[in-house]
């Protein structure tokens, strides 16, 4: 199956981003394809390289970047939400792209399931 995943919450504040990641990993492990990740609202903060958590905590943006690279997943970060929060190509994780909400619509159309994580 093709799973689309929508992430609506920022890193470290709520569990949503962690749940989304765990779900995505489990889906891939079961042989499913991730048709795309879409980061929206505060969720766009998951995709900034401007985070340096302590070494004994998870590095949320690095974890996403590795996931994207390893599985060749399309990751879209909402342009309007990014502009509001100071996320640009300069501080965007590798493998992600900044684009519009139309991409979320496309993801909904393409995916067998689109599941949202937020708070």
């Amino acid at each position, binding site marked *: 199956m093709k799973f689309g995943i*929508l992430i*609506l919450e920022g890193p470290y504040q709520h569990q949503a981003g962690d749940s989304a990641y765990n779900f995505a990993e489990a889906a891939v492990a079961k042989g499913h394809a991730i048709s795309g990740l879409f980061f*929206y*609202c*505060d969720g766009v903060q998951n995709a900034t390289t401007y985070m340096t958590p302590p070494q004994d905590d998870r590095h949320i943006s690095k974890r996403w970047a590795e996931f994207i690279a390893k599985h060749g997943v399309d990751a879209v970060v909402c342009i*309007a*939400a990014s502009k509001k929060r100071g996320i640009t190509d300069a501080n965007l994780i590798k493998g992600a792209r900044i684009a*519009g*909400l*139309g991409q*979320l*619509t496309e993801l*909904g*159309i393409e*995916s067998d399931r*689109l599941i*949202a994580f*937020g708070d």
Partner: protein
Amino acid sequence: MAGEDLNEEERSEEDKKKFLFLMRKAPYGSIYPQGGLEVILIMAAYDQTISVLFADDGVFCLKKGQETAGIHVKDFSSAFKVLESYGVEHLYVDKTSLEERGMKPEDLLTGVEVVSSDEMSGFLSGQDVILPF
């Protein structure tokens, strides 16, 4: 102004999906309802079937007379009035949620269909994508 660069080509029927926006959060306390509204306004440029259900505190989004100048936040409630012209198929409000909040349909800033959760259960199951805001 979404859709300017979009080809108005019709999508084939199998590409057409049923999207439901499930609005359950109050306005201003968080970005969620505004975020949902923005997705609806963009999605309207695509040839999809869109419905919106307001339940729980989401019904507060439709309260008439929102004035946000005092909190220095943009009032986005007016934009809910365009949904019908944007081709949103159904605007539903959950009856119980409305009643629990002491509100009546005439307190709402746009015309909606007031429905019971029983009526909605089957409708929810028939959706392809449900987006919570």
